[in-house]
């Protein structure tokens, strides 16, 4: 498949978006929002498309919406009627996903399809074709290479795009990608020198890996009560901003919202382990009683629990949590320190 490359001009991309729109297919891609930041947005055309900037929030919300109705209900006499809603299976295309965002999707497929199949998640997954872009370059908080992903990673992408002088070079990665290319082939041309692989990703990372995930995992698994967790959490406000921007944090809460005495909706909403409410029992008791336990939980889940259960690190190294943290908490710093201890004498 690596050789199956095409290319598309900027104008071609524009007309592709127009055709998709005409065909009733939603196009999603990075674009500026009112405060000037870039987020994945629904695109009417290509004019606002901003592929060169990492979106503030990840692609996750297009598969696990911030809030979504699961069903509606109505009481009728002694009966309760459950009203099923139309499934979220409208066809969509993501244009210009970051590799660290695309890579998160197959990681999450594992948990979403584990003991039961999460229908809304897979309905959206199946209805969506993902055209990722090769990373145009990150900043000091990026660490995808530490967690087994690369700026040109194909994970989660149906097609991969890389900027070239005349537009974009496009590489098919999955059958779904191939089908998409076939369906809209009139907008694409064969790539020049089809033997060429995609050019390397943006600026190469000069730094050596900051942490070895295996060592980190081993240390975490044996240091649940380590005083480090007390110290690392001091500056944490428990705001959960990290989870909100994270491509892999996927916890949710399910609530019933009555609209009157006889009807309402059951909804699923994002939740985060960083708040006290997340673990508070009905009795008032909270097993994770303070922020230390919550900070530990986040690292633990991503780098030990999830890998143990699903064989994948629950992190794509996008660096958003470090960028968004209001008090300067940095996951790479935490991992590096753990790794140092783990590698040192008396380590894991």
């Amino acid at each position, binding site marked *: 498949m690596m050789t199956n490359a095409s290319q598309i001009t900027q104008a071609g991309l524009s007309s592709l978006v127009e055709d998709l729109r005409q065909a009733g297919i939603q196009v999603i891609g990075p674009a500026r929002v009112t405060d000037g930041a870039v987020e994945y947005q629904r695109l009417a055309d290509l004019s606002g498309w901003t592929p060169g900037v990492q979106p503030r929030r990840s692609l996750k919300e297009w598969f696990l919406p911030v809030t979504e109705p699961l069903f509606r209900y109505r009481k009728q*006499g002694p009966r309760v009627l459950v009203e099923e809603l139309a499934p979220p299976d409208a066809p969509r295309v993501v244009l210009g996903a970051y590799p660290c965002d695309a890579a998160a999707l197959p990681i999450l497929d594992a948990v979403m399809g584990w003991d039961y199949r999460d229908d809304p998640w897979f309905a959206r997954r199946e209805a969506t074709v993902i055209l990722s872009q090769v990373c145009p370059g990150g900043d000091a908080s990026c660490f995808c290479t530490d967690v087994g992903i690369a700026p040109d990673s194909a994970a989660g992408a149906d097609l991969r795009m890389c900027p070239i002088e005349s537009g974009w070079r496009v590489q098919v990665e999955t059958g779904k990608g191939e089908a998409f290319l076939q369906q809209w082939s009139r907008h694409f041309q064969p790539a020049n020198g089809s033997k060429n692989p995609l050019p390397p990703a943006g600026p190469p990372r000069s730094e050596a890996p900051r942490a070895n995930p295996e060592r980190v995992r081993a240390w975490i698994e044996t240091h649940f009560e380590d005083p480090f967790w007390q110290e690392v959490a001091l500056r944490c406000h428990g705001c959960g901003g990290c989870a909100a921007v994270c491509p892999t944090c996927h916890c949710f809460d399910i609530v019933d919202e*009555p609209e*009157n*005495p*006889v009807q309402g909706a059951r909804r699923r909403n994002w939740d985060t382990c960083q708040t006290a409410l997340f673990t508070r029992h009905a009795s008032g008791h909270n097993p994770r009683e303070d922020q230390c336990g919550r900070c530990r939980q986040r690292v633990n889940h991503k780098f030990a629990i999830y890998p143990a259960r699903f064989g994948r690190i629950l992190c794509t190294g996008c660096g958003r949590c470090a960028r968004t943290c209001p008090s300067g908490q940095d996951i790479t710093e935490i991992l590096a320190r753990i790794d140092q201890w783990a590698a040192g004498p008396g380590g894991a």
Partner: protein
Amino acid sequence: MARIGVFVCHCGENIGRTVDCARVAEALRDLPGVVHSVDYKYMCSDPGQQMVKQAIAEKGLTGVVVAACSPHMHEKTFRRAASGAGLNPFLCEMANIREHCSWIHEDREMATAKAIDIARTLVEKVKRNRPLKTIQIPVTRRALVIGGGIAGIQAALDIADGGREVVLVEKEPSIGGHMSQLSETFPTLDCSQCILTPRMVEVYQHPRIRLYAYSEVESVQGYIGNFRVTIRRKARSVDEDKCNGCGACTQACPNRKVPSEFECGLGKRPAIYVPFPQAVPNLPTIDRSRCLLFLNRAKGRPDTCKKCAEACSKGAIDFDQQDRLVTEEVGAIVVATGYQVYSIGKETGRDDLHGYGEYGYGTLPDVIDGLQFERLASASGPTAGRILRPSDGKEPKRVVFLQCIGSRDPAKGMEYCSKICCMYVAKHTMLYKHKVHDGQATVFYMDIRAAGKGYDEFTRRAIEEEGARYIRGRVSRIWRDGEVLKVQGFDTLSGRPILMDADLVVLATAVRPQPGIEALAQKLNVSYDRHGFINEAHPKLRPVETSTAGVFVAGACQAPRDIPDSVAMASATASKVLGLFASEMLEREPTVAVVNDALCAGCFHCERVCPYGAVEHREVRNRAGQVVRVVAYVNPGVCQGCGTCQATCPSKSVELQGFTDDQVYQQIQALGL
């Protein structure tokens, strides 16, 4: 699971004419949790109430909604009925489909829809009602009476005669108040002292009255049934236990030129004095601002004089006596601090009150106020009852009385009527005529307000039989011309200016509350109007209660009052107090706020907004006994149930029982259908 019963009342035709009651009952039947819904002609009738009781018993109802009239009309009725069937009365709610629906709408369709909505909101509410118990508060069955004038005396005696202990606090050295200064009283012209003095003595001798004269209320804590009052017993410089009231000290005092408060400045007293011969208690007091020894002390000089101590055979003079604070536990408080007369000079002590400099009060010695005239007319007064003018001691042949000085005058800061002046001026003209047979009394008045038993007859007698000359109009200026006073005014009936000579001018100045009333009201947490008069709880129905439960008001501190009014009010407060003291426990509606300890963050916004000071600080301790948090606690004895705390609490950690957030929420939700 809720089992709600709905009872829709036709109220004869009152509701049934515009609301389809059967349809209301039917619509409510479909609501989740409603197990019984019926309509009936007259729910409040015996058979109607029986239906409610029967349904509670047979269907095991957990809540009742009666869709009928206003809860102000029949809530008590149906709660009693529910209670009679074994349901907690607070699980019964009224849906007002009469006053708020059938009586104000004509469209049957819309009125019925509205009635269904109204009833539904109450059904949803009652599902979240919780059984409540009336609150029982222990009552300390002793009363505090503040003020030892006629109102305070009457209240104290009535309560004490009713069998309860009374603490009576008077800030002056003697009880008696203004009534002890009066010569004779309208409309009967009986001697004020003669009727008052026995009452004063009775107070002094009463086994159930503890009298603190020359004392003031320092602070008040607690709430109805449970007040803790700190009283400052000001230093008399005389040991009360040793003094036998012989009066030798007052005779010995060399400084005999102190203007007497009792004589309104018309007489003198020594620095150690008993305010008047019939004073109760009959104990002298050293006026430290006038005593030579204390004046020397203030200047850092050695103690000199001590003439009084030398004269005292009991060794009762104590120059080093200090103020003492005593604490009394009481269950009710009667405020009877009385009045003062408006100072008509230029100095009023308040920015919004303007004096009457044009009348020369304070500069012209023969311009006096009504109380001073009382002293001139009093047999025990400085002139031994002869009317003699202050400047030269001559008998005035022409006396001009001016009414409404300060009163009914928004420009001067007091728009209210002082009520007693019309009557006492008429009395003064008579007293004057009786003592100076060839004298002429002239009265300038705005209106004559003589509403009261025998009052109008009294003023008519002054005018028609005693020859007082009444001129309707106001005086603009008074000045001195040799020995006479020139009075310039205007007769509004004849429309002519008037200029007349007078030997003495008497000003009927406005009645004002005592100075310091605001501070006292704040200590008691009772509201007062902008003049400082204590507000009654309701002008018609609760005239002697205040905004704070357990605090009552009598006499002229509430509004200008004459003696009969003050005494009636005082007896009314006594009756209220005795009613409150009828049982050891006080029952209160459970509509009070309750704090959720676990959620209260202790920001105390609730404390700041509480109109009653019902919020206290409570320490939450861990098992080791250490204080881990300080949270709010609402004292159910003080809380009146307004719920302002709950609306203010950001985390809703305080709930007003009967109107909880959950109850209101469900009512709003019910309207979403």
